[in-house]
């Protein structure tokens, strides 16, 4: 069993991991940058160590500094959280070489799923449906055979960066005329943003749902899947609201998607927590998009609705730590059932009235929501100044209701109670979405904001 866990992250996810470790009786070490000396995660861990100045490249992304911090504090394991080094296979490799347990999958799994073209090939091989698209990455946008292949897929198509993620470097093309320029621009952009001009082309599914499957797998080859999450409310491919279960997925479809995710995990010998993302059309056809080889921001939604052998006992981060320690999963997919409906709103320090412009600054005062069925994962407090170096996520508000309608009403009630003074937040935006008739009726696709929110504005 792990004895001392260093959390190579900051803010709410660092706190989430510290809490899980404490409940497991594991000592915790917080790392922090100079800009984060007042961040709540440094106050909740058993020990803390400053590893560098504000910019992430010199602190939270500095592998030598983090390994050194492990040595200095005697930590025998590292939890990478999400973002930063969580999907960096080299970091996983260095940890292993230094005898430090990396609380995540193997470096091979990270590598395989990190390259989106490779991941798609593996999914196809495992029998998981994939979006129709070209087989190889684009090398020459003027290649006649390539243009022919793309035409065969049928417009509209979407161009994606192989090394991309988080929605960056994507481009939709509606006709053959604009294809060549789009390919060239996408290659150029990808090179700048991800250091590789490797791009690929897929059929563009119109008004799809983003549905994803949380999995857990141990080092003995056991894989379990959880009920799907619907993360269709996105702005520029960034998720803003997540819910579970998805309102249009029935028990039969749930099993089908869950088994597809399981097959992919088995194919690559995956262990730890992971998420397989699918895109789903109106007919319930689903296609593999990518796999995230880390714990995700929206994991509490799954924790809220999953029952294991009839008990509300799921803590995905604890499971991750236990798996990393070599423990075997104590349940299988058939032991999991759904209880109620959960929604998560990501509260960002952004001004929704000014095109979601980041709004860092000092939080003068804050009142947190509470009551039945409400969970708040956050690192903010009254008097805390949000640094400008990092992500704008300041809180995750999660509610659980007996059904979707109750969950929506509960979320609106909780958003009303949540008062943050001093900075602009996305709370008013969430209230607006949750009161939209289409959302209430479950007409939720990745085009939602464009269709119902911004056109009205």
């Amino acid at each position, binding site marked *: 069993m792990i004895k001392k866990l260093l959390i190579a992250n900051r803010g709410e996810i660092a706190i989430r991991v510290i809490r899980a470790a404490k409940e497991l009786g594991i000592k915790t070490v917080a790392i922090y940058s100079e800009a984060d000396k007042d961040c709540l995660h440094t106050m909740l861990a058993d020990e803390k160590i*400053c*590893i560098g100045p504000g910019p992430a490249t010199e602190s939270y992304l500095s592998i030598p500094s983090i390994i*050194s911090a492990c040595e200095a504090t005697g930590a025998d394991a590292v939890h990478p959280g999400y973002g930063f080094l969580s999907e960096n296979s080299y970091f996983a490799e260095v940890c292993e070489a230094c005898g430090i347990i990396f609380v995540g999958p193997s470096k091979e799994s990270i590598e395989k799923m990190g390259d989106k073209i490779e991941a798609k090939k593996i999914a196809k091989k495992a029998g998981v449906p994939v979006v129709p698209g070209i087989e190889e990455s684009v090398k020459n946008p003027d290649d006649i055979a390539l243009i022919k292949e793309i035409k065969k897929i049928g417009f509209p198509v979407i161009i994606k960066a192989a090394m991309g993620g988080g929605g960056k470097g994507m481009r939709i093309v509606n006709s053959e005329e604009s294809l060549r320029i789009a390919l060239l621009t996408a290659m150029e952009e990808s090179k700048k943003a991800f250091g590789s001009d490797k791009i690929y082309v897929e059929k563009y599914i119109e008004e799809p749902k983003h549905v994803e499957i949380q999995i857990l797998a141990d080092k003995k080859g056991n894989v379990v899947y959880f009920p799907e999450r619907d993360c269709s409310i996105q702005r520029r491919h960034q998720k803003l609201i997540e819910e579970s279960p998805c309102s249009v997925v029935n028990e039969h479809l749930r099993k089908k998607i869950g088994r597809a995710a399981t097959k992919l995990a088995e194919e690559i010998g995956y262990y730890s927590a992971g998420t397989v993302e699918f895109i789903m059309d109106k007919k319930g056809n689903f296609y593999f998009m990518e796999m995230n080889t880390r714990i995700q921001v929206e994991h509490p939604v799954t924790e809220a609705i999953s029952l294991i052998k009839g008990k509300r006992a799921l803590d995905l981060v604890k499971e991750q730590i236990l798996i990393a320690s070599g423990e075997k999963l104590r349940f299988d997919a058939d032991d999991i059932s759904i209880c109620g409906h959960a929604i998560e709103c990501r509260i960002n320090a952004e001004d929704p009235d000014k095109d979601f412009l980041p709004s860092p600054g000092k939080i003068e005062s804050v009142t947190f929501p509470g009551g039945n069925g409400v969970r708040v994962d956050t690192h903010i407090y009254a008097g805390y100044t949000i640094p400008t170096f990092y992500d704008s996520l300041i809180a995750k508000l999660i509610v659980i209701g007996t059904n979707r309608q109750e969950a929506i009403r509960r979320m609106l009630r909780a958003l009303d109670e949540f008062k943050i003074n001093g900075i602009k937040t996305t709370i008013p935006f969430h209230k607006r979405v949750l009161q939209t008739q289409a959302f209430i009726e479950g007409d939720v696709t990745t085009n939602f904001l464009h269709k119902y929110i911004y056109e009205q504005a």
Partner: protein
Amino acid sequence: MANINDIQQYIDFLSTTDIEELEITAPDGEVILLKRKPGIQYSGSIKKQQSLGETESQIKQESTKEEQKDKKEFVITSPMVGKFLLSISKDHPPFIVEGAQIKQGQKVAVIETMKILRDVVSPQDGVVKKILVEDSKFVEYGQPLIVLEEVK
């Protein structure tokens, strides 16, 4: 509330005299305390203070800095998290000892991180007053390592 221009007038007035301290009570009860810094002429950079308490605490902070300046000490901090090494190996003499005189740019210690050695160099001339960290101990980023005293 006192006008910033009014305060500037008081400052200008003070600079023509040798008065050390000036306390002004405004009709609304607000108190402004102006105090001459030792050896420093008044300029327009004095900040307006809302209360006497704040003014005093600011002056106190400034005077602490003054004391440090009198001793002319400065601290070298760690450029990264890692193991603090005073010599290349046990067989070698340490880079510095307390009381030694060192030059600007001179290597004073090494921080080891994952078998990578990073030199800690002195930003200026001085005498090593105190080595704050034991050899081979881990240090965090920004941790004070060595106190130097300026050469007179």
